């Protein structure tokens, strides 16, 4: 049981890592990015491409892929989301949904249907483990991913609360019109925020590829886990995202000990339970939606 809990918490670190960018984008820009999972898979494929064709280790490859993901985030905001937001709050959801379909199918077209992994390119790291007392073994990669999630979430929190740019992004999120009157370039601030979000998506994609396998259509399930973690943890709270990821993963891991089928079912069950409790606490669906918007 202790083993299950420890493995669950570590898996939660990975969920928190993929949820970080999603909840950052929602809390700061009020955009639900449905292409989030597909973009993480795109990052994983980019690392694979560099490793296969140029023998670049995925860790070194991140030096190329992370800036590239940030650039994609910047352009995504400038070319798609800015315009979509002007048409109404629901249009970015449609736009990013469309984008996810485009990304998935382009990846399928380019890389084919094979299931891939970055595990072959990171030496023994994909299977080496640390022994804990009580004959419990934890994967080095899983511990590293968990630590990375804490660093990313903590870094986002510190960036938002302590740096002038972080303040500008928060101000823009609260009131873009007034942010402009104060001297903030609101369009630039949201584009930078989007670049930061996609930077974390690049890290999540690397973790996805190293810890297991992925294919062109893996984005949907990644999005779902990120989404559930963010909702369980409460959107708009950085540490809540970590808690949310851990709760989701614990539910899955404990569920899986009952039956392998219960891995996903227990996760979805906890997500729905938390959602219904939140709706009830907010005093009904209408208030809940109003509070979230």
């Amino acid at each position, binding site marked *: 049981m202790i083993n299950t809990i420890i493995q669950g918490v570590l898996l939660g670190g990975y969920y928190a890592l993929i949820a970080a960018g999603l909840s950052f984008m929602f809390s700061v820009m009020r955009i639900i990015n449905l292409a989030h999972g597909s973009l993480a898979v795109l990052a994983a494929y980019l690392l694979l491409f560099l490793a296969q064709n140029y023998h670049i280790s995925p860790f070194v490859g991140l030096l190329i892929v992370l800036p590239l993901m940030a650039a994609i985030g910047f352009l995504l905001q400038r070319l798609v989301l800015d315009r979509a937001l002007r048409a109404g709050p629901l249009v970015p959801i449609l736009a990013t949904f469309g984008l996810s379909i485009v990304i998935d199918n382009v990846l399928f077209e380019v890389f084919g249907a094979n299931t891939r992994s970055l595990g072959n390119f990171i030496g023994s790291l994909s299977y080496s483990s640390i022994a804990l007392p009580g004959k419990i073994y934890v994967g080095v990669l899983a511990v590293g991913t968990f630590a990375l999630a804490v660093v990313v979430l903590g870094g986002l929190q510190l960036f938002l609360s302590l740096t002038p740019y972080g*303040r500008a992004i928060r101000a823009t999120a609260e009131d873009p019109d007034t942010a402009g*009157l104060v001297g903030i370039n609101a369009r630039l601030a949201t584009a930078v925020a989007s670049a930061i979000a996609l930077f974390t998506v690049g890290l999540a994609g690397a973790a996805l590829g190293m810890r297991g396998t992925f294919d062109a259509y893996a984005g949907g399930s990644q999005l779902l886990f990120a989404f559930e973690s963010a909702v369980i943890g409460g959107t708009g709270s950085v540490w809540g995202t970590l808690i949310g990821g851990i709760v989701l993963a614990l539910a899955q891991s404990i569920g899986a000990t009952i039956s392998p089928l219960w891995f996903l079912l227990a996760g979805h069950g906890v997500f729905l339970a938390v959602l219904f409790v939140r709706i009830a606490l907010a005093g009904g669906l209408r208030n809940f939606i109003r509070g979230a918007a």
Partner: protein
Amino acid sequence: MSTLSLQGLNLHHGQLQAVRDLSLSVADGEVVALVGANGAGKTTLLRAIAGAHRPSSGTVALDGVDVTHLPAHRRVNMGIALVPEGRRLFAEMTVEENLLLGRMSGRSGPWTVERVLETFPNLAARRRARAGTLSGGEQQATAIGRALMSNPAVLLFDELSLGLSPVAVERLYESLKSLMQSGTTILLVEQDLGRAMQAAGRVVCMLEGRIVLEGPTGTLSRQEVTDAYFGLARHRVPA
């Protein structure tokens, strides 16, 4: 310290015309009070000067430079700062964070958080309080401080005393006295006619989007301004 010049401004809210063919020049270091009834177009005019409202036609120029097509944040950088109606503070952020945001424009000058807190002593104790928890007077002081932090050459005040208690208004004007005499160019929208005429060197009265009366405060009687305010006297049209 700067000259603000508006030429033939037409401003619309959709179908509604808020300001009609308005021209106005504010000289270096001048304090001008803009008065008029609700809906006269004062707020829209200030927002257009600050860059938050795009004119249908006409130009806004600062020191002879046409800024009509510059976005608001670039105008802050050139020295135009607006203290908006209703304060519009970032409620989730602290007083200090709100003030620091004013520095984003990157203009150099004498204003620091410390100096704002000296100017508005009632803010010193609330430095780390969230702006949403402040009293009206404290909020207005923070909004003014935030504008000052950008070291503006032209300050636009929209409805300074709206929603404030008489004591808070008194305290606010007391704090602003030295600022108004320091040579900063100020355009002030104020409901309180007595205060406006006391603080400003010139009064501009707007009615239905047009200037119907203007002149140095010394030469206008309260009655003349009141008549123009309500549209009772249209005989004095600006040259």
